[in-house]
Every structure is written in C-alpha cells, then in structure tokens.
C-alpha cells in the first residue's frame, strides 16, 4: 500500500516528462510506404500476368518470392533495417517484415553454428507469426466448414 502511494505520486511527476510520440505522423508514413509496397506488388502481378502469361495466383507467388528475396538481400547488405526504422510498419506488416525478421535472426546467430545458432534461432521473431498464422487458419477453416459446409 505504501509502495502503491509512492508509485502514484511518482507516476504523476513522470507523466509530465513523457516524450511526445507522433503517432499520427508514424501512421501516415506507414500508410504511404505500405501502400507503395502494395502498389509495387500489384504492378509486378500485372506485369507477370500480361508479359509472361502467368496465372494470377502464380504471379502472386512470384511477386512474394521477389519481395522476400529483396528484403533478405537488403537485410544482408545492411540497409534494410535503416529503411524499416524510417518507414516503420509500412515495411514490417507486408511479407518484407517477415523476411527481414528471419534474415536478421539468422545473421545474428550465425557464429553459434548451423545447428545451435541459425537452426534454433532463425524463427525467434518469425515463429510467433507462423504459430498464430497456422492456428488462425485452422480456426477459420473450421468456421468455414461449419457455416458454409466447406464450400
């Protein structure tokens, strides 16, 4: 109880010195940069469909592969983390963020060897996305089966 009173008193002072975080600006930057990534993705799909006559789903797959490759290469060359710091969620939410998290983890632990380093740490950040991606796809699959009869 004494400690609680102390903390309340302290928090009152500390709150006065909380630095301003420009969330609206950050959201705007992420919206624009994320939008540009989406636009480039769509552009690639259109190009693949038109010029090399891929089906739309194949074109989408190829576009994702290219984005993963570029993000991983950029991480390896050491400039992608600076872009992410600048454009924030605009690059984290698309597949580029996923690739970035895997490559950066793998790079960080490469000195601990292939098994104990890269193997066991590569999914350090991306593991969460995969686990809950699978869990939610199972859940929505079940819903779809129960409601729509699997159609």
């Amino acid at each position, binding site marked *: 109880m004494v400690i*609680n009173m102390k903390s309340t008193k302290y928090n009152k002072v*500390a709150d006065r010195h909380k630095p301003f975080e420009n969330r609206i600006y950050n959201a705007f930057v992420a919206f624009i940069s994320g939008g540009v990534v989406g636009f480039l993705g769509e552009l690639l799909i259109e190009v693949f469909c038109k010029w090399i006559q891929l089906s739309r789903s194949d074109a989408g797959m190829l576009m994702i592969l290219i984005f993963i490759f570029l993000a991983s290469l950029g991480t390896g060359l050491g400039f992608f983390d600076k872009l992410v710091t600048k454009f924030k969620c605009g690059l984290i939410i698309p597949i580029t963020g996923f690739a970035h998290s895997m490559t*950066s983890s793998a790079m960080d*632990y490469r000195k601990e060897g292939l098994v104990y380093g890269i193997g066991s740490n590569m999914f350090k*950040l991306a593991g969460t996305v995969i686990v809950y991606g699978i869990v939610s796809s199972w859940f929505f699959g079940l819903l779809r089966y129960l409601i729509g009869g699997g159609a």
Partner: protein
Amino acid sequence: MTLYFDKVYVEESATVCGPYEKKGPLKKYFDKTYDDLYFGEESWEKAEIKLVKDALTMILKKSGYVKEDIDLVIGGDLLNQITASCYGCSEVGSSFIGVYGACSSSVLGLIIASSMIQGGFIDNAICMVSSHNMSSEKQFRYPTEYGAPRPNSATFTSTGAACSLLSNEKSKIRIECATLGRIVDYEQNDPNDMGRVMAPSVIDTLSRHLEDTGRDIHYYDMILTGDLGRYGLDIVKDYMKENYSIDLDNYNDCGVMLYDLDTQKEVKAGGSGPVCSALVVYSYIYDLLKSKKIKRVLFMATGALFSPTLLYQKENINSICHAVSLEVA
C-alpha cells in the same frame, strides 16, 4: 548505508570506445577510439571482450604497472554470466571479482575496491566495466540487423570499456565516501523508457545520501547520474523539487553528456549501459578534478535490474543506484 574512506585514491584511468561515442562531444578525452563495431573480431561478444582487453592493456601502460603489481580486478558488464569481464580479464592473472549491478556496475566496483583498500586487505585494484551496443541489443532486444522502431524515450547502449585504477597511494583524486543503493520498485515496466524506470532509485539514494552525511546539495560542485537520458533527468529534477524542495541546478546525466543529442538522433533519449557513466567520469570528470576546475562530485550510477524473461512474466523492472563521492585530494 554510507561508507567513509580516507585512504582510497584514483591513480589512473583508461577509456576505450566505439564509433558512436567517438562522434560525441567528449571524443578528445578518450584514450582509444574505434571506427567500426567489430574491432577486428568476428562476433559482437568477442568484440566486447576485445574492448575489455584493450582497456586493461591501456591502464597498465598509462600507470606504468605490470600485471603482477595488480592485486585485484573487479569487472562488470551486461552479457549473460558477465562473460565479457570473465574472458577479458583472464590475461591479467590477478585475483578477480565479477560483479553485476546492470548499468550501476561501475560504481558498485568502485565501492567494493574502496572498501578492500580502506580495510587494508589490498593495495590496489582495477575496476573495469564494459558494454557493447550490438551484444546488448542481441541479448535484451532484437537481432542487431532487425530495424525495430524505437520510441523517443528509448536509450542507446554505449560501446566501450573503461578502467579505473584505485590504490592507497596518494594521488590527485580521492574517493571520499559511498552510499550503497537499495533495490527500488516503483511499479515501472516499460523497457523502452529506462530513464523513467531508474529515476526512482536516484531519488532514493540521493535523499538517503544527503540524510546520512548531513550535507546540502550544493556541497557538491556536480551531481552526475549514470544513464537516465534526457527525460529521466527531467523527472529527477522535477521530483526532487516538488517533494524535497531541492533545486538540482548542479546536476547532469552521463547518458546526455556522452552524445550530442541534437545531431546524433539514433541515440534517442541518450546513452545507457555500464560503460556510459564510466566513459564520462573516468575521462572528462577525472580531468576536471585533476585540473581542480571542480572539487567535489557525487557520481551516481543507475541500473535496471531485470531480465527479458521476467519482464514477459509480467514482473516489474526494479532499479538500483549506487553513489560515490569523488574529491580533489
């Protein structure tokens, strides 16, 4: 608890730092600086060990001592099992104590060494601390190449190693007294706002130090905290004024002094890490004391006592602050 010393002197110091600290305003005070973060080593952990070895070599060279003259080395850093100190200090061959007080390790080492010298058990001791931005990021936060956005309140772990050689032979600076910190819990839990987490420990230790010694705040020419950053500094000033009616006009923070916060935007609120306070005090502040520009300094190193594991288990981040009073002898 406040301990008084009358025969503990700072004989020599040595500082080695990385590229970000080199760009800061205190560059000319450091003994050795590097332009990259690997220092010719192949991993971040080994790079930090190299820094420790460099600083130890430097202090032996500057003081004219050989390894066999050193009675004790006290080392501290942020890595798990304080490995940078353990591996880095192994070549000296003297007795070794590894300490962990997070970023307060610098003053913790000074207090332990001072007590042993005052007690007459040893003649001299080297107090070493180190930290490395990348090895800390890897251990406490995200992989180093991961560009996680950080809020403005976040601090930046300094890269470097710093040593102080204490002895019972009279020199220009003496360690006059020390107040040991208590573990303080003000129910803070934001790892991206360490200034806010650690400011309560400064308030606790500072108020107890003044009470124990019966001194006025202006007894000291300068009061320095370790690594609160610019917002933590404001909190301490504001809180001391509001609750203790103490005007801290002679107060600054090493995390703010180590970098140029206006041009070095990447450090956000300021520097942190055990070496942050040591880099500033063992170079710039020792110089000021040696040239008698200032006479008395209260050096308060702050540390956040937590691990990512317990943070994820919803525990608060506790903090501690050890203070040591440095005087012109």
